[in-house]
């Protein structure tokens, strides 16, 4: 308002002043519009309404067909089991790592590992894990034939095991860094140092004191990320295609199979499956909430008991958490290393630990074919990230200038696209985009990616944005600078590092998107991720290595830039380091 009446403001800012107040609403619409529209577009065919395929009435036939599928109970159980196991293990590990090590030098090292680990796309990490644990993988090779006696890869179903254990492991390696990052952000608000010192002064062990004094405050702050992890683990598709069981697969994978079935009438069944997937996630969240209540009750009893924690037990927990966390990180790093080796491998026989010869042949053969998917990936990720940054900054600046305070309830809205299963609304989104004629194009894919990129960009930027000392802005204004100059000459340069990190996060999220690219692109938009996952069935490790590495590089490069660029720019500015 103040801007609009100001006579000193230059014309451009007056134009922006009209756009700015609308930015938060526009951001919400861009993020939630596709989710809500997509959900309705999924629900309609599930109930038999899809005129294009001759479905006009409201029937439950699609659900009848779905429930008649013999694999359903097992697929549903798999989805639930995998989701709960992956989430519980990841959360437990993150909590124990923080309880045992927060504030120590070791913890600093863990923090530095986070960003690179986070930037590895899910599919690439899953391929890496597959390279390690497969019967012909590195672990088996390292133990053979000496310990195992295997002269050829054993006929064991380690990968894609029917119980989903390898899928759970694959998810844990990616969820631990994500939850740890969210926990770190929450910890800065809880200020754990003092509470922990008080608890220790009262004779509590480090881990016990942390769990009793800090965790209860902390969990409230990381509840939404935990829900997102649970929903994601229950409904993930790309990781489940690579590591999950096949007969039957998880429900989400089966839904995608039905969706790409040449028999178009299977679309109805697919839609019903997608609706069931949504119900399943809601049920899962409800169950998790009940578990929260039960754990809280037990926790209160435990806290009231005054148990201080035994030294030996504490030590074991600390070391155990560190080792398991290290193992999860190692699985990703060694997996990537395995892909590097495979992509350069000539002849590589079992049980040799390394190939006979290294060659550039794989890269020479498949490299030129990478150009298309690389360009596509970078274009889409660049556009989605750019739009997300613009909308996020405009929303935050609008909040700042017009004194809008986001309600805590609004945070739910940010997490909605991360909690609603992708299959549940992308199918409807696809149907709608066909109806509106924007299907199969790059623009539609960018919009679909934006739905997932925006929350991450917003979440990673909003905290540093608010932490910026507003008095710095008051000083600048008092020196005669208008709001635009304060934004461009003071606030954004001072926030360069978090800006670049947010951009890198957004870019990595876009690079890693499988289902939105596949469905909304109608199979015609080929990115590194869709190509890599499509190669999974073929099992040619050399090609997979090439594609997975290219995918990882595309996701990782912006993170490297976000570290290097501020260092170079601010090499003579001590006050800008570590900020």
């Amino acid at each position, binding site marked *: 308002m*103040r*801007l609009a*009446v*100001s006579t*000193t*403001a230059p014309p451009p800012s007056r134009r922006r002043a009209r756009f700015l107040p609308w930015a938060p609403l526009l951001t919400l619409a861009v993020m939630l519009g596709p989710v809500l529209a997509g959900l309705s577009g999924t629900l309609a065919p599930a109930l038999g309404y899809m005129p294009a395929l001759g479905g006009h009435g409201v029937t439950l036939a699609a659900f009848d067909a779905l429930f008649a599928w013999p694999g359903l109970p097992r697929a549903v159980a798999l989805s639930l089991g995998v989701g709960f196991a992956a989430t519980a293990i990841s959360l437990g590990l993150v909590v124990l790592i923080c309880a045992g090590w927060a504030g120590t030098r070791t913890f600093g090292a863990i923090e530095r590992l986070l960003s690179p680990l986070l930037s590895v796309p899910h599919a690439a990490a899953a391929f890496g894990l597959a390279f390690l644990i497969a019967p012909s993988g590195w672990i088996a090779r390292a133990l053979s034939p000496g310990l195992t006696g295997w002269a050829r890869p054993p006929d064991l179903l380690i990968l894609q095991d029917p119980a989903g254990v390898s899928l759970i492991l694959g998810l844990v390696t990616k969820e631990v860094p994500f939850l740890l990052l969210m926990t770190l952000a929450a910890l800065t608000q809880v200020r754990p140092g003092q509470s922990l010192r008080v608890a220790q002064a009262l004779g509590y062990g480090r881990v016990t004191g942390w769990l009793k004094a800090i965790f209860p405050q902390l969990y409230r702050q990381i509840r939404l990320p935990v829900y997102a992890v649970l929903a994601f683990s229950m409904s993930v598709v790309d990781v489940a295609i690579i590591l999950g069981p096949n007969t039957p697969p998880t429900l989400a994978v089966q839904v995608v199979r039905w969706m790409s079935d040449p028999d178009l009438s299977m679309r109805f069944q697919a839609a019903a499956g997608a609706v069931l997937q949504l119900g399943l996630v809601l049920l899962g969240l409800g169950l998790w909430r009940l578990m929260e209540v039960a754990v809280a009750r037990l926790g209160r009893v435990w806290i009231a008991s005054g148990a201080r924690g035994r030294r030996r037990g504490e030590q074991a927990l600390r070391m155990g958490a560190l080792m398991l966390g290290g193992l999860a990180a190692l699985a990703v790093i060694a997996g990537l290393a395995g892909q590097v080796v495979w992509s350069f491998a000539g002849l590589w026989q079992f049980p040799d630990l390394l190939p006979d010869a290294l060659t550039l042949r794989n890269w020479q053969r498949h490299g030129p074919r990478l150009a298309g998917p690389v360009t596509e990936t970078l274009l889409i990720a660049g556009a989605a990230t750019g739009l997300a940054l613009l909308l996020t900054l405009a929303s935050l600046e609008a909040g700042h200038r017009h*004194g809008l305070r986001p309600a805590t309830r609004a945070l739910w809205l940010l997490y909605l696209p991360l909690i609603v299963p992708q299959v549940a609304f992308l199918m409807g989104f696809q149907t709608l985009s066909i109806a509106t004629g924007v299907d199969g194009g790059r623009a539609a894919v960018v919009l679909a990616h934006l739905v997932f990129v925006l929350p991450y960009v917003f979440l990673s930027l909003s905290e540093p944005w608010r932490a910026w*000392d507003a*008095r*710095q802005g*008051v*000083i*600048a*204004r*008092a*020196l*005669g*600078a*208008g*709001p635009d100059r304060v934004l461009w*000459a*003071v606030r954004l*340069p*001072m926030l*360069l590092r978090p800006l670049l990190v947010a951009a890198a996060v957004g870019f990595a999220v876009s690079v890693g998107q499988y289902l939105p690219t596949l469905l909304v692109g109608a199979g015609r938009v080929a990115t590194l991720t869709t190509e890599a996952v499509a190669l999974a069935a073929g099992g040619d490790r050399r090609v997979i290595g090439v594609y997975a590495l290219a995918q990882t590089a595309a996701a990782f490069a912006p993170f490297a830039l976000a570290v290097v660029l501020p260092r170079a720019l*601010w090499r*003579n*500015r*001590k*006050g*800008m380091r570590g*900020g």
Partner: protein
Amino acid sequence: MAELLRGLRLEQVVITLGGARLIALDCAIAPGEVLTVMGPSGVGKSTLLAAITGTLDPAFAMSGRIRLDGRDLTGLPTEARRVGILFQDEYLFPHLSVGANLAFGLKAEVKGRAERRARVLAALAEVGLEGFARRDPATLSGGQRARVALQRMLLSEPRALLLDEAFSRLDTGLRAQVRELVFATARRRALPVLQVTHDQSDAAAAGGAVVVLG
């Protein structure tokens, strides 16, 4: 008549928060004079300054008029008010060199790179900081930072000066020195000064009227 209007005047300024009255003040500060507002923390001293700079949180409501040299400041954006402010933290922009910090304050009406640069160097020389233009502000001592912040503010040619516990971070010796520099400069430039502090010695050094809140 014009003489009467000069300086900073708070005319029946009342600031309320959710209907509860926080501050009520009616006073005039003539050019070169200092008014000290004292009171324990949480009494709303900084809120008063925010009202004058135009950065009052929307949760607060203000009635009354604030005039600077006869000009009504109500509704003017902060950057058009020509009110300089110093906090206890200097808030030198960490991404800019000392010289660029001063140039940020220097009015845009001063044109030409050479002229602007000359003005910045002169401002540094005035407080004994010759050769500091290219320095990183994070490498300065507390006293140097305070002087840079003062000069940066003066280059924006404010018509009034607000001090928000501006000296409380400095240790005793330095504090007297910086305080003396700030008050002497304000007198020389005929700036009305409003300082809020909870330190008696700041009030004594200012020598002007004292209002106690709370």
